[in-house]
């Protein structure tokens, strides 16, 4: 009986996600203050300012963070900012490369002039601290081995003083390392985008000013997509998200009703 109960729950959850997709319902997404703050930080940058985007996630967190990355890249391109990608998670490098190549094709960007992918280095917080002095000490070549000094975009970029804002897309603890080093040590601006699991832990940094914006989960990605005027995967996902949340709340309520009735019987 237990097994059947479990499988019915799984089936209901699957249907709660599949059915809304089939009806293609559009929805309005209200923008929350932390996401608005992130948007305004990028919006305030001058044309040609380099931004550093750190891909700190892997395929397991891709459904939440890849749409966020694409929306942020579109915003950066619209503002004519120069994009520098790097990664603290090794499996994030191809995800970043896939996203930037999609945007590059869409907007006709040129590698080395409009965007650069530095790749990955192990060391976590050690990399962050070291880059604050000189990026070339850690990244003297890009992800394919091309010397960084031969890339026009990187010619005048040496440390965080030459970067408008660092944008960290987080699935783990790297967001804490960015927030604890960038502002206090280097006085640099930071925007954090994170999976919904990690987001609650990053609110203290937003409140203290250690990060200037926080984009949380698929909802945050949907808000950012709407802000840049390109609603996409994340926005479409909001209705299945609503349906699944409603179902889980119903499960919690039914479970508690059964619990109360069982307690009364005893």
């Amino acid at each position: 009986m237990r097994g059947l109960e479990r499988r019915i729950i799984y089936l209901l959850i699957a249907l709660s996600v599949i059915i809304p997709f089939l009806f293609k319902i559009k929805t309005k997404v209200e923008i929350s203050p932390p996401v608005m703050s992130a948007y305004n930080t990028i919006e305030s940058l001058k044309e040609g300012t380099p931004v550093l985007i750190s891909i700190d996630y892997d395929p397991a967190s891709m459904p939440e963070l890849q749409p966020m990355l694409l929306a942020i890249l579109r915003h950066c391109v619209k503002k004519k900012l120069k994009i520098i990608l790097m990664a603290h998670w090794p499996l994030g490098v191809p995800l970043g490369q896939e996203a930037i190549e999609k945007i590059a094709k869409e907007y006709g960007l040129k590698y080395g002039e409009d965007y650069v992918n530095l790749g990955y280095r192990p060391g976590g917080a050690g990399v962050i601290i070291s880059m604050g002095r000189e990026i070339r000490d850690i990244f003297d070549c890009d992800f394919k081995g091309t010397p960084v000094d031969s890339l026009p975009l990187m010619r005048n970029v040496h440390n965080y003083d030459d970067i408008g804002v660092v944008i960290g897309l987080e699935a783990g603890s790297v967001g804490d390392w960015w927030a604890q080093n960038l502002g206090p040590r280097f006085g640099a601006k930071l925007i954090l985008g994170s999976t919904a699991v990690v987001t609650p832990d990053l609110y203290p940094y937003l409140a203290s000013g250690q990060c200037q914006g926080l984009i949380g989960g698929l909802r945050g990605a949907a808000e950012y997509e709407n802000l840049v005027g390109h609603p996409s995967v994340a926005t479409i996902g909001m209705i299945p998200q609503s349906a699944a949340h409603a179902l889980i709340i119903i499960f919690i309520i039914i479970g508690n009703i059964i619990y109360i009735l069982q307690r009364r019987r005893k």
Partner: protein
Amino acid sequence: MMETLGVWLAAGFTLCIFSFLYKDNPFYKLAEHIYVGASAAYMVIFVWSFDVKPMLIDRFIVNGKVNWSLLFPAFFSALMLCRFIPRIAWLSRWAIAFTVGIGAGIGFTMGLHGYILPQLKATMVPLVNVNNIIIVIGVLSVLMYFYFSIEHKGPVKYVSRLGRIFIMIAFGASFGYTVMARISLLIGRIHFLLSDWLRIIK
């Protein structure tokens, strides 16, 4: 053609993993073992492509000049690999000590300079509105909840109880966000199956 094959391969693996929901089966086990094996090999390629080659090999001789100082990290990296040989595995402690020492130094500076000082400063806010009052009371009561050097009785007990209430609200919010995160992951996979594989939706 390769792209279509790739999509079908990805969809096949996706369904193999989902089959676990019915019960553990050979398709799931096969997919799981392929994933573990491929991921392990990826790590080796990553370490070569992003660590050994650019940081050690390419930098050893630059413009005809030999960078002898790189022998030090090369030596320590070799010591790290001594773990695989039981007779000289103790040498790997030297390399581990290096990484642990750096990690401890970073942990100390980040914890103090990067977290405690900025967060304490942010908690010292004027008590001019309800939100600020709640924040100050919340932070202090939660810190009191975890302070075990004195017995929790009398006023301390009530402050500690208030801290517990704040913690329950925080855990509840984290729970809500965790549910959101898990459902989002499922939405991503279902979107792939319906859009890229079956092409039912755009």
